[in-house]
């Protein structure tokens, strides 16, 4: 029996609801309909009164979550698409993210953001929001790339006392499968070596991990050994694991599906350059989406985001430099 990334997210929520009476889910169409992507399918039947349809009010959804968290509940907020979280942005960054610092009252909320590009989704159903939220103090930002991580990190997120931005990748929802769900909990804030190598480090996260692994496989046939670091969590960022990898390989390529200005790839490179300049044998490189809104048409979409092809090309150039 295999489990998809989406099923893992549903299973993690079911387990959280079953194990912790403080947990509830609030979001548009999450009730009887089971959510736009069916991440909450049948949960309302299993947990009546704890899976609630919200009006199309991202601001008020987040405000309600903060109030409930103050009262000791543990809300899971489903944004129908990551893109719409901008309509609740104020409550996330100014209310949820500042509460603990201002008052010492923790704010345990999980905000699930189905994000990332899928062909045909266009500018408003494709965005990656991790860098925007990671910019704000007071938030933890997780970006699972695997079925196992989607499950474990979501459970860890619900257990955390702080607000978590949980970035799910829609492209992985149905295609990515695992044999079984993990049992042991995963420590937060630790990156994962997705593949070992000694010639070049690719640091990435979320769906781009799979593109990077495909590149590593391809370049392996050319005799290169590529190491792939899956960040798992972009905030906090596991600088130690990145630095240790760069120490082994001397070459760094950062790949992110979101826009190039600022962001996770810029942050990783800034840290490696300032804290580990001597480890580098070549200038570190990064690859992001183009600096335009995400296009609708598959031809444009596929050229907008990094792909195994463009990553392989960047890797080859860096390996030869």
């Amino acid at each position, binding site marked *: 029996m295999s489990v998809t990334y989406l099923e893992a997210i549903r299973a993690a929520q079911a387990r959280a609801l079953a194990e912790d009476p403080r947990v509830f889910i609030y979001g548009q169409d999450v009730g009887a309909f089971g959510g736009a992507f069916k991440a909450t399918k049948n949960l309302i039947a299993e947990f009546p009164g704890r899976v609630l349809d919200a009006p199309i009010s991202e*601001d008020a959804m987040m405000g309600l979550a*903060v109030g*409930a968290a103050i009262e000791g509940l543990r809300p899971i907020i489903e944004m129908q698409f990551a893109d719409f979280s901008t309509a609740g942005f104020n409550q996330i960054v100014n*209310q949820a993210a500042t509460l603990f610092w201002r008052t010492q*009252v923790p704010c345990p909320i999980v905000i699930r953001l189905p994000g990332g590009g899928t062909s045909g989704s266009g500018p408003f159903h494709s965005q990656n929001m991790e860098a925007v939220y990671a910019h704000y103090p007071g938030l933890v930002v997780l970006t699972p790339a695997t079925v196992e991580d989607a499950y474990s990190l979501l459970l860890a997120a619900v257990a955390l006392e702080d607000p978590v931005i949980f970035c799910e990748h829609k492209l992985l929802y149905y295609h990515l499968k695992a044999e079984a769900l993990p049992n042991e909990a995963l420590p937060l804030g630790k990156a994962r070596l997705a593949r070992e190598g000694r010639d070049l480090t690719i640091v990435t996260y979320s769906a781009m991990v799979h593109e990077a692994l495909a590149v590593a496989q391809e370049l392996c046939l050319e005799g290169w050994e590529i190491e792939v670091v899956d960040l798992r969590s972009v905030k*906090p960022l596991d600088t130690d694991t990145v630095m240790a990898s760069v120490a082994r390989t001397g070459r760094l390529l950062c790949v992110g599906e979101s826009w190039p200005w600022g962001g996770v790839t810029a942050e990783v490179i800034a*840290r490696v350059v300032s804290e580990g300049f001597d480890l580098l044998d070549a200038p570190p490189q990064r690859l992001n989406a183009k600096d335009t809104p995400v296009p609708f048409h598959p031809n444009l979409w596929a050229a907008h985001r990094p792909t195994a092809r463009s990553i392989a090309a960047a890797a080859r150039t860096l390996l030869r430099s």
Partner: protein
Amino acid sequence: MLLARVAEEKIASLYRAGKIHGGVFLGRGQEALSVAAGLALRKSDVFAPLIRDGAGRLAFGEPLIDAVRTYLGSRLGPMRGRDGNVHRGYPREGYLPMISHLGAMISVVNGVLFARRMKGIPDVVGLASVGDGATSTGSFHEGLNQAAVERLPLVLLIANNQYAYSTPNHRQFACRDLADKAAGYGVTCHTIDGTDFMECLRVLPAVVARAREGGGPQMVVARLLRLCGHGEHDDAGYIAPEFKTSALGRDCLHVAEEQMMQEQAVNAAELEAWRTETMEKVERVIARVQREPAPDPFQEDWRAIQTAHLVEVSASANPVDSRAPGAPQP
């Protein structure tokens, strides 16, 4: 009311003397409404006051010293210098510390009420206070609609003091009366004269009781005038003179004093004694807080999340500068 008025006047004079960091926002003209709101609530209720609710905060049970400590930035205050002036509270006790963004507290009150209902805690009311300007925000709309959909015991108190900073009502909304908005949400609205202390004292407990009895969200629109600048930096030269001389421009504190004298609840001499006593009390508290320690950047943990091991220690973060204002001098 008197305590709020006297304390705020004193804080305003400290501001003019340059002894306060940041702004000072007074509730002058709004004390009757605010105090009636605070008194209508029980300690176990939920209160999200706004900038002009100094009186309501005291009535809800906030010790005067909390206000003074937050204004003066004492390390012993509820916000310990991390936030200031009107941004203070104890969220776990149902006393919510406002963020600046107008309208944003309404849905947070909803969340507390929602959680209490889920936890099976009965008989709770939550009161959120906003101004006429805040009614134009998306958060106001979303919050009130959400309360109505969830049928939460929310009282949404709108102090229509005719201006939002310098913006008059006619540039803020185009409906005939703010009260008309309630119908659009399926919410009952009550309109009151916010300068009339006795009316406020009569209506607000009744409205709170309706919410408590399961009547769903209640909206209250109170007419009044802001008898001060938006903040103490503002001379409010834009306020139309007609307003000042109209019934809206009555000082609710004087109205209250007259009402109480008419009822023979108090006489002029007693009022004078109250005032003197109150001044002394305020001065004592201020003198005490002025001797309290300021926050120390070296002792600050600079930690924005509860989970200590997830705090990022970035090499590029600004180190604590010993020359920063408030830091102990070498």
